[in-house]
């Protein structure tokens, strides 16, 4: 039970923070504030790198230079090509599978009893520990990486979807029935739109977890892609390159989450756009 509470907390936290940035998206000074915040961050990084806090900690400017170096010699592109395939595949599969499974469990008692406990355990478990096992079974290829992504991404997506569907607004269900909605119409026109904020909170957490999964897989087992690039530069003590790689994947992950939120507001909850 503690597990499910955790999901709620995370979902709620993310939902409220997303609300805040949605308010910011009203295109006035918040943009400026955000730029200031980024500049401040870069400044502190630069100072920390110059002190230096550690010989392995590059300055911000060195990291930026290293980033363009990696872009120019093509190593970043090659690494992302290898990392993005399992990541995108795993995330897309988790999203479809997770939302479908969660919806079914939310609607159908037997499914709930069969499936939900598994995901509660999975979410509680330090799933990263399964990754070597996955490699053992599926080798070190694309399948293993995709599975690593899914193991991390799926539980939170399933559990959030399940909870959202479970807690759908009862009076809207009655309304739909009174206006002669069929079961399919009820799911498509009431349950999913009503559940979408919590489902999307789950998707955002799932996508973030998918990034963790793919990097872990590449660091732990399959020395390819971004994980390999990080390990490689560390072994050569090219710390600026290493940090540039790490920063690039963090940036990509952030951009993906922002995009997901944009889709949510655009497609599912137009009323929250101006709110």
């Amino acid at each position, binding site marked *: 039970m503690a597990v499910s509470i955790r999901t709620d907390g995370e979902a709620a936290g993310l939902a409220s923070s997303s609300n805040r940035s949605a308010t910011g998206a009203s295109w006035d000074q918040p943009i400026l504030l955000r730029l200031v915040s980024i500049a401040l961050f870069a400044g502190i990084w630069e100072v920390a790198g110059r002190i230096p806090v550690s010989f392995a900690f590059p300055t911000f400017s060195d990291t930026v230079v290293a980033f363009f170096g990696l872009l120019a010699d093509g190593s970043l592109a090659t690494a992302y090509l290898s990392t993005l395939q399992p990541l995108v595949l795993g995330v897309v599969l988790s999203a479809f599978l997770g939302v479908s499974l969660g919806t079914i469990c939310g609607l159908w008692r037997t499914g709930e009893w069969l499936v939900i406990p598994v995901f509660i355990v999975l979410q509680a478990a330090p799933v990263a520990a399964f990754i070597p096992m996955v490699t053992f079974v599926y080798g070190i290829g694309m399948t293993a990486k995709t599975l690593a992504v899914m193991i991390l991404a799926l539980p939170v997506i399933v559990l959030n979807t399940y909870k959202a569907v479970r807690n759908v607004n009862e*009076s*809207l269900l*009655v*309304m*739909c*029935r*009174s*206006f*002669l*909605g*069929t079961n399919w*119409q009820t799911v498509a*026109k*009431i349950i999913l*739109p*009503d559940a*979408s904020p919590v489902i999307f909170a789950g998707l955002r957490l799932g996508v973030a977890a998918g990034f963790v999964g793919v990097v872990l897989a590449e660091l732990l087992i399959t020395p390819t892609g971004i994980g390999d690039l990080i390990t490689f530069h560390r072994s050569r003590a090219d710390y600026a390159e290493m940090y540039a790689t790490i920063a690039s994947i963090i940036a990509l992950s952030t951009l993906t989450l922002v995009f997901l939120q944009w889709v949510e507001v655009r497609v*599912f*909850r*137009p*009323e929250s756009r101006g*709110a």
Partner: protein
Amino acid sequence: MGATALRNGPSPVPAPIDSIVEVRGISKTYGNVEALRGIDLDFPRGKLTSLLGPSGCGKTTLLKIIAGLIRADGGTVAINGKRVSAPGPERAFVFQDFALMPWATVTRNVAFGLELRGTNKAEREEIARRYIAEVGLAGFEDKYPHELSGGMRQRVGLARALSVDADVLLLDEPFSAVDEQNRRKFQEDLIRLRTNQNKTFIFVTHSIEEAVYISDRIVLLSPRPGRVSQIIEPEIDRSGDPERIHRDRHYLDTVDEIWQGLKQYVE
């Protein structure tokens, strides 16, 4: 009794000439709470009938049984002579809590009943626009529910029920979440709608004044178990100024009469 027709006792009321909804022997028990016992009622076509009674006497339960949203333990409901036990196109419900989809505009909410029926988009939006204007919300077509006041939201709920062109409109305390000014305005609109639309309204309320003001017929329910205790037909001329009606002798007498009848159930 002046112009007020009064029939006493729980015995079945003689059927009026043309009743659109016939309720026979309806009973309903929740666990060990007997919510309704042996309800026999006829609702005359084209009239506004109120179900009035103290809290917990089973008004909502009866209305939802007529709507087909709750199954009765015993008895039957017939609409236009046909027995029903599920929601149908001849009835439309207006919900106490509005039940609007927050992610949909006023137009889509109003057109939702038609959307579920598969009416094409252009046609249903045309119909929705007409009823949005009818309930006085023209100009708000593209707003979302959270941008509207409580009174306006309930107008959306009313327009949605009107747009499916049902014969019977079922309203469960539609004004309880609406402020007093809006409530007055809304009551006047309802009287006007009833004259224009030629629909049958079944209206749940626990306000005696409201019931007397808008109803052709008032069914008083007594609690534990819910039964019909009295049927009153206030014959009030509503053509004039609404303020005058509120000072009308018959109006005041009827309100007082009902209050005398209900007082025994209130501690």
